[in-house]
């Protein structure tokens, strides 16, 4: 057994966990950790703001399907990660955030750059730790990674006082932790699966509703198989986009407040709803009392608290989505359940009718329409890009008009709705997938919330592309003001903004701008094919709205269509 410093133990555990990249920003109490980090082959990406580090770790985790790691100093360094933690928590993303802390003897003394980050982040982490002894470091870090990636994944914060990282302790690699009080249920109950099969057999108008849990558990293939066996149409939450091929004939499009007409109508009419890895968020359900009013509901989720929280469920199934859907598939085989396309014809015809009468639509005239930019982006990237988004209209248009055929390719702050997420997340995704094209779909408001990360992208030669749908408004809030506040645009006019193309140039990135529809394709082509990071600033129709829209508190079948 060796004796190591705390900082060395941290590095040993990170190596043991297979960490190859850390997103961080240094400070007084973490100098020892950074010093040790520089002696390993773990790549460090120096961000320009700790919020950027937390979001980048999140983007990395989602693109790669493994744990993202972020490192910051005490006090403000730690508080700056809070939005990133909250976003990762809401979206169940495995992230480990390491923060420095003042020496244990000073804790509680209001020391310089001291903050009770464990107290602050208790409600927005899956779990968190303050390590008080160097001897505990290895165990705590192993537990942190274990908790972050297992069960319903989520962020874990570990607070590291300076004397703990400087102190010495005997170290040997620890096995995967076993925690008596933490045992997520992976294996679904077979009795419940059988009850689900009975409902499936009797259903005439089923809908499958897929969420982020399907992506997290790697259940996309099983889900696709399941849907095809049932000839059941599939919709998804924002977080579930890509869990089922967006170009499949059974695909309904996204559900909810800005869901497609056919998806929302299908929920209103279905007699069986199979929710997989979803949590029936209010942006999906609209008015709860009128959500899927005629349907029996099967709900599969690994987190028991998600089940029957918002929507009462007929058959609850607690377990890993992949195991559960696999279980359903094999039971369907075992019981020789044959559902033919003919059985489903009436139901699928009805959906087709909704689709053809009320598709997603916009009119491209003399001003650039944001939807047109996304459609062109989809066309030019052949649907192969990893898309991150900011939050607001840009996020909804990306969700509606870019068709995701594969999981882990749509990265967005779904639950928290955190503006400023997309750009650092794109940086993280690009680090995770250096060979993929990564595009952040942004608004002019959101991009300014973490625009400093341009320096990071340029420094590490990360060829992230940013498509700014620039309407010089905080567009989604403006849309609400237009529709529900008699066009009183209080505090949403963003005319005072930099010239994004020139700003990008000043950072050493490529900056492009399009103000007319005919320039869109050329700008996209040039930006996407450039070797380095690029900002593409599209001056779009200022008062374009995202439709369909379900007003807050209305039933999801009551949509504003234009």
């Amino acid at each position, binding site marked *: 057994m060796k004796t190591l410093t705390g900082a060395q133990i941290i590095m040993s555990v990170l190596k043991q966990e297979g960490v190859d990249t850390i997103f961080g920003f240094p400070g007084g109490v973490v100098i020892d950790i950074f010093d040790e980090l520089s002696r390993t082959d773990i790549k460090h990406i120096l961000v320009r703001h700790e919020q950027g580090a937390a979001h980048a770790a999140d983007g990395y985790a989602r693109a790669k399907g493994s744990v993202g790691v972020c490192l910051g100093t005490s006090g403000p360094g730690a508080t700056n990660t809070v939005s990133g933690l909250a976003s990762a928590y809401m979206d169940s993303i495995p992230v480990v955030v390491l923060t420095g802390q003042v020496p244990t003897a000073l804790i509680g003394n209001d020391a310089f750059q001291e903050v009770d980050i464990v*107290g602050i982040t208790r409600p927005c982490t*899956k779990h968190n730790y*303050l390590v008080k002894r160097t001897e505990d470091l290895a165990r705590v870090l192993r537990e942190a990674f274990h908790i972050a990636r297992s069960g319903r994944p989520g962020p874990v914060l570990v607070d590291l006082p300076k004397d703990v990282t400087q102190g010495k302790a005997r170290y040997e690699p620890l096995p995967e932790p076993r925690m008596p009080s933490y045992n997520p249920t992976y294996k679904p109950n077979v009795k419940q699966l059988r009850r689900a099969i009975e409902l499936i057999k009797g259903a005439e108008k089923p809908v499958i509703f897929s969420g982020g849990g399907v992506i997290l558990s790697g259940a996309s293939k099983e889900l696709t198989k399941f849907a095809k066996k049932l000839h059941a149409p599939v919709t998804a939450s924002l977080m579930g986009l890509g869990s089922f091929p967006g170009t499949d004939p059974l695909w309904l499009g996204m559900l909810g407040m800005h869901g497609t007409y056919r998806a929302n109508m299908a929920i209103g009419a279905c007699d069986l709803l199979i929710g997989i890895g979803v949590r029936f968020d209010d942006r999906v359900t609209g008015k709860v009392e009128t959500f899927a009013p005629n349907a029996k509901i099967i709900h599969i989720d690994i987190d*028991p*608290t998600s089940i029957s929280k918002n929507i009462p469920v007929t058959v609850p199934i607690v377990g890993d989505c992949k195991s559960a859907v696999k279980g359903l598939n094999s039971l369907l085989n075992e019981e020789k359940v044959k559902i033919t396309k003919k059985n489903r014809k009436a139901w699928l015809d009805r959906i087709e009718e909704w689709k053809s009468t009320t598709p997603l639509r916009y009119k491209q005239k003399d001003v650039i329409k944001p939807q047109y930019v996304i459609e062109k982006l989809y066309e030019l990237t052949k649907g192969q890009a990893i898309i991150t988004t900011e939050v607001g209209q840009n996020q909804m248009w990306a969700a509606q008009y870019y068709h995701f055929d594969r999981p882990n390719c749509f990265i967005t702050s779904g639950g928290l709705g955190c503006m400023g997420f997309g750009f650092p997340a794109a940086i993280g995704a690009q680090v995770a997938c250096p060979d993929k094209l990564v595009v952040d779909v942004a608004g002019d408001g959101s991009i300014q919330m973490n625009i400093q990360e341009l320096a990071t992208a340029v420094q590490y030669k990360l060829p992230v592309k940013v498509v700014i749908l620039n309407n010089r408004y905080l567009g989604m809030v403006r849309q609400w003001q237009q529709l529900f506040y008699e066009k009183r645009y209080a505090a949403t006019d963003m005319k005072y903004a930099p010239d994004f193309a020139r700003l990008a140039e000043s950072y050493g990135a490529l900056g492009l701008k399009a103000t007319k529809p005919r320039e869109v394709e050329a700008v996209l082509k040039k930006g996407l094919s450039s070797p380095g990071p690029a900002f593409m600033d599209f001056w779009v129709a200022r008062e374009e709205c995202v439709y369909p829209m379900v007003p807050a508190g209305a039933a999801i079948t009551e949509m504003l269509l234009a």
Partner: protein
Amino acid sequence: MKKHIISLLVDNEPGVLARVSGLFSGRGFNIESLCVAETLDFSVSRITLVTRGDDAVAEQIKKQLNKLINVVKLSDLTGVEYVEREMALIKVNAKTDHRAEILRIVDIFRCNVVDVTPTHYTIEATGTAEKLAAILSLLKPIGIKEIARTGAIALAREKKGKAGEVF
């Protein structure tokens, strides 16, 4: 809204109580009383808390508590047979003309007088919430100066002949 007595075994670590109470405040649940102390196993504490809610809320409270990493075991005593006790220290004004009356009440309810001065008695009372309510309603007209209550603690009744875990 049904009363639920929830008994939790939790890791005996700093911050665990904050996780439990923070969960209640953050999610808009209500704690009526809460009682914490170590068990025989130093690494585990027992939290007994009393909350109210309809079935769906109670279900959600229990699931959320179970989700906390530091919660080792949870049992909802509602619907099972259990024994419940709460202790109160009650300081009453005891002027000459009331002293005998107070002692009679103490005697009837099997309380103890644990502190005496020429003007006050401090009474130790133990029982269910109902019993304590009865004692207080009798002492109130005489004049209660101060009161401290522990909140309920409870354990499920053992089935006959079955040896249980000792905590």
